[in-house]
């Protein structure tokens, strides 16, 4: 079985055929060029024809392509001679390998290498999308030779070629490239021409880090607002709380009265609950412990993790501590240090996961140029304004949770399901918010078990169950000593008593609350049940769909493969439904965001993550609509967090980063093609601008202090809801594509 994208060309465990990649003959040596071509043509029949075509950048897949006339003979003979030797899978990988060959070592370059931006014109989108569709539906019929290598190409040889004139084609492509060119693409091209891949990637990541640091200059949540401060103080408090029990000659003790306090893990979930009591799962606590330990290695940073004196201590002690905190905040060193922990964690977990994801999904061939879309898409994803503003501005460690989830997706794609499950458990163990993703991950894994069916399926299911439970048990191990500890931990992590929603958040309940006062209508417990029911109702269809598609695909594959007992090789691979995963992740998390209980405005980061991943599809040449929706939802999501950012004093960063990011990815809503999303975007942006202007010049009436926030909520929830519907449609399309008729 091949991977789901033929261009990837590096399938795992594929019985790959290694064609000798052509060496470059000396330029101008036409004799060696010809002989070289004829030599390679017998090896790579499909790729060869494309080397002469002008479609280096946007060649349609081999099986859709019509050979040019002067090569048809050669092609015919070579493909027939090759046919018997290849099994179904290897012939597919042959096309993959040959497409890699053309991409990488294409000896002919009909237009200058500076024009290397992928031109996602009409034809590109269609061809790539249809490639995915055709390819995945071809999985079942892949018993013998495939149509691409023999049937279609032979038939099409007798059709008149309908290729447009080369000059007109070039012009058109250049025009379309100019239209879709983006500063990020120009940057990738420019740096790629001057630097090695590692250099260009390193520079790009350094730029991302630089921008993160610039945002870090801004205020954090609750800066200089004693006594409670904000999320920054919460995280700092957890560092102090968890690391208080460390004692070793290596560790400096933080100054202050509370330094005598030593709290073992079992006390973490009980300590001082009124002052930022720990309410995140254990991995956050361990992460805090790790950072606290690092802080205490140096006498300069040890004071950063001073624990607040317990409630029963004297007023003088509390005042002392308060005073030291004010000094630390004014000094700026503590802020920088904490900001640094975010940036480092982000780089190690989130950025690495993004680069790997983009490399696997969006690379074009194996050469240096193949990295350009990777750099473009990775930078688009890493500079996503919503995440930067919350993590590096407002101050949280969301990127760690998102990064762990993305690592899980990466592992699933590579077929390492157990590692994927562990990564996802870690993500859940870092922040319970990752629960929003769990239906999709669960559905994919269960679907894979059904796809495999029989013994391998059951064994995978058992392994997954064992590994998941085992990693949960390990995570919670310190709290398993007594039932009261674990109950307290769970009670802290899932606070049902806090009400349907806290702040104004762009979800359905908060929006409905404008019309119907829900909290007066029913008790918290009833509302929780209603919310749970609604969430399930919204999330279940996509889950069931994913599971059904997996099962149906598996059935078809088993039927068609029939006699060939190739089951064991399948186990190590991802299954075709993996391409449904980003949309499924989006659907389940957006369903949770819109309908579940106790949602924060920052939780919009969760639906945004899988959607932002789809941005890279444009670089690989498919998914124009995905890209447009993704950018729209990103912009609206940042806007939906505006009240929060305004409170934190991050207005300049909000404006500069959002506009800058849109410019960087080359987004101009006026230049989109006519579609529903274009007019929705234009409408949404005009409303957003109008609302900002209104806020600038007028203040809300006295009896409606939250008026602007409510406008914000209403606008955002409508766009989010439409995005949800659209993604449902896309999922059905994709699922249809996978299952086939």
């Amino acid at each position, binding site marked *: 079985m091949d991977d789901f994208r033929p261009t990837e060309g590096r399938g795992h465990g594929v019985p790959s055929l290694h064609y000798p990649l052509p060496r470059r*003959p000396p330029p101008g040596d036409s004799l060696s060029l010809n002989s070289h071509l004829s030599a390679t043509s017998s090896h790579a029949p499909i790729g060869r024809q494309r080397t002469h075509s002008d479609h280096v950048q946007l060649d349609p897949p081999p099986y859709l392509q019509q050979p040019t006339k002067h090569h048809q003979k050669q092609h015919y003979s070579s493909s027939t001679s090759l046919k018997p030797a290849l099994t179904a899978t290897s012939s597919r990988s042959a096309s993959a390998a040959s497409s890699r060959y053309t991409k990488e070592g294409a000896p002919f370059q009909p237009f200058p*290498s500076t024009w290397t931006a992928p031109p996602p014109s009409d034809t590109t989108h269609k061809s790539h999308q249809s490639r995915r569709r055709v390819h995945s539906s071809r999985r079942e019929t892949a018993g013998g030779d495939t149509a691409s290598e023999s049937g279609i190409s032979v038939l099409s040889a007798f059709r008149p070629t309908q290729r447009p004139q080369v000059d007109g084609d070039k012009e058109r492509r250049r025009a379309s490239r100019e239209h879709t060119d983006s500063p990020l693409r120009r940057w990738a091209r420019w740096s790629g021409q001057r630097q090695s891949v590692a250099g260009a990637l390193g520079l790009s990541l350094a730029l991302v*880090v*630089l921008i993160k640091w*610039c945002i870090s200059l801004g205020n954090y949540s609750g800066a200089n607002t004693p006594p409670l401060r904000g999320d920054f103080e919460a995280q700092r408090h957890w560092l102090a709380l968890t690391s208080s029990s460390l004692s070793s000659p290596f560790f400096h003790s933080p100054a202050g009265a509370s330094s005598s306090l030593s709290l073992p893990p079992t006390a973490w979930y009980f300590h001082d609950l009124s002052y930022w009591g720990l309410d995140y799962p254990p991995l956050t606590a361990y992460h805090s412990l790790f950072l606290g330990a690092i802080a205490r290695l140096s006498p*300069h940073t040890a004071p950063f993790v001073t624990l607040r004196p317990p409630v029963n201590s004297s007023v003088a002690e509390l005042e002392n501590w308060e005073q030291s905190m004010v000094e630390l905040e004014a000094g700026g060193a503590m802020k920088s240090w904490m900001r640094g922990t975010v940036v480092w964690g982000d780089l190690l977990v989130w950025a690495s996961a993004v680069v790997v994801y983009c490399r696997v999904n969006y690379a074009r061939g194996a050469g240096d140029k193949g990295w350009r879309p990777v750099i473009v898409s990775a930078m688009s994803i890493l500079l996503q304004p919503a995440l930067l503003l919350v993590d590096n501005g407002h101050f949280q460690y969301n990127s760690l949770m998102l990064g762990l989830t993305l690592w899980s997706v990466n592992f699933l794609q590579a077929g390492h399901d157990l590692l994927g499950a562990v990564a996802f458990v870690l993500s859940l163990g870092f922040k319970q918010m990752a629960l929003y993703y769990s239906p999709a991950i669960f559905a994919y894994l269960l679907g894979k078990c059904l796809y495999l069916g029989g013994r391998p399926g059951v064994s995978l299911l058992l392994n997954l169950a064992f590994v998941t439970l085992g990693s949960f048990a390990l995570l919670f191990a310190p709290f398993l000593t007594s039932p009261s500890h674990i109950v307290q931990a769970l009670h802290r992590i899932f606070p049902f008593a806090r009400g349907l929603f806290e702040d104004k958040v762009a979800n359905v309940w908060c929006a409905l609350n404008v019309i119907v006062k829900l909290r007066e209508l029913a008790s918290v417990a009833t509302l929780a049940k209603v919310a749970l029911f609604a969430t399930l109702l919204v999330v279940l269809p996509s889950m069931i769909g994913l599971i059904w598609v997996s099962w149906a695909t598996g059935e078809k594959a088993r039927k068609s493969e029939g006699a060939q007992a190739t089951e064991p090789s399948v186990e190590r691979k991802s299954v075709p439904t993996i391409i449904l995963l980003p949309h499924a992740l989006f659907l389940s998390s957006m369903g949770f965001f819109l309908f579940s209980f106790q949602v924060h405005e920052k939780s919009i980061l969760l639906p945004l993550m899988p959607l932002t991943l789809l941005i890279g599809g444009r670089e690989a040449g498919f998914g124009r609509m995905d890209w447009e929706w993704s950018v729209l939802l990103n912009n609206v999501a940042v806007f939906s967090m505006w009240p929060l950012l305004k409170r934190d004093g991050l207005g*300049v960063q909000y404006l500069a*980063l959002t506009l*800058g990011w849109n410019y960087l990815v080359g987004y101009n809503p006026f230049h989109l093609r006519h579609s529903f999303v274009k007019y929705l975007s234009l409408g949404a942006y005009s409303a957003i601008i109008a609302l900002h202007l209104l806020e600038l010049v007028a203040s809300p009436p006295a009896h409606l202090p939250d008026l602007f926030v409510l406008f914000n909520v209403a606008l955002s929830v409508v766009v989010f809801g439409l995005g949800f519907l659209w993604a449902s449609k896309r999922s059905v399309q994709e699922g249809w594509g996978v299952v086939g008729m």
Partner: protein
Amino acid sequence: MSRKSFSSSTRIRPSKEVPPPLPSPPAPAAAQKPWWHLSTTERDVLIASLVFKFLLFPAYRSTDFEVHRNWLAITHSLPLSQWYFDTGSEWTLDYPPFFAYFERFMASFAYLVDPKIVQLDNLGYDAWSVVAFQRTTVVLSELVLTGALLKWARRSMKPDYPTAVIIASSVLLHPGLLIVDHMHFQYNGFLLGLLLWSVVAAREDNLYACAALFAALLNFKHIFIYLAPPYFIFLLRRHCFSKGSECSSSSSRQFQMDRLVELGVIVVSIFALSFGPFLIAGGTAGIRQIFSRLFPFQRGLNHAYWAPNVWALVSAVDRVLVKYLLSRGWPISPSAVTSASRGLIGTIEFGVLPAVTPTVTFSLTLAISLVYLTKLWLDPSYKRFLDSLVLSAFTSFLWGWHVHEKAVLLFLVPLSLTAVEDHDHLRTFIIASTAGVYSLFPLLIKPAETPIKLLASIIWAAVVFPSLRKVVPLPNLFSMLVDYAETFYLYGFIALQLYVGVVHEWIFPSPEVIKPSMEFLPLMLTSLYCALGVVWAWLRLSWVYLSK
């Protein structure tokens, strides 16, 4: 990419060393477009720089921020005659009149934004409104620099347009400008923009504009007077001596009085525009007051933190000698032992070496400058003019009295324009930029800006240096050996940063343990190491200038 092309025989393709041109029109086409029609590259760089500079709004700002706020208040609240007499704040107005008018102009907007900004007694006001306002004025006034660079790059012939765009972008995003203007807070981008406009005018032989712009610049900030001698010689020689039929021979040049008078009228009228209102309002006493503010001579040889120049090296030698002789029991005046390097503005007393007076420094500067000026007199070409500008700035920085480290921008920016002239210029540019930018790091004293200044400088260097190196032909064997030594010096900055950032704190863990004599060790090391680089760059450039 070009490697994979098989059709190089039929099409003109750049060789491997020369990167393919940017996808932008070449110079002639670019020059024909209306100036506001930016190419994609120009637009990208401009927007990236704007976004980046907006993000730097909350960064650390020095007392210069309050200085400029106070000037806004002075110029807005007081009548013109009182501007240079006000002592309500310790940050008195000490820039020439044009800058005062510029502040007055901005103050009228500041009043609209927040009237508290321009209140005289509102000292130390640092609400978000004033921060955002003043930072915005820096970013907007820097558009003058952007315009000058655009003009310079689009009509540039010698570095071709793609290279010129890289150089122009490197100036616009220069880490030195970021540190001094957008974090520390000053208006150097605007002023250097005026300088570059006048340089561009000189390149196009539009010498009246060149003179007028430079005269205006002098009335914005008088530090540019260091560049006046080359301007004077260049304008005199180029404009007032008419060319005969053979341009190259200097004997055929005839002095033309009328041209000198024309230039003189332009310059004098600009000065009149600047000082005239003060003369009318306050008489000669007003003018004298302005000059006493502009040229305060009570300051010391070195600034608080030693600027990386010759005197830093001399002071260091003196310190070492004092330590050595003290240990040998020589009698040395106690005031000299405690003087210097204490981080305070004041006069420095050398313990061993002969004292340096302002007269000495000025005569040295003048003597060295005369050498360059003679060469410029003999060959008043644009290229030589630009080189002599850079060298004058270098000389005044290295040998001047009470030089501030921010003055490195004075030679770094014009030097950038000549970077791809030849291999020597490129090496000078690399060494001087690295040392100069690094010497600016101590301006930002808060930990939050450390990663930003480091990352911005590294990225800048990693993008600019290799791109420029590719368009400069390789040197001969001897200079390659020199290059190795220079590269070794450049790597030394990593070690220096490690010491300053990590090791020093580790050796002397806390302020109580620190030995008083070690307190300023990181600053001294930075200053000395940078001084080595700047002096070497100056020597190298001087050698090229004089030998060719």
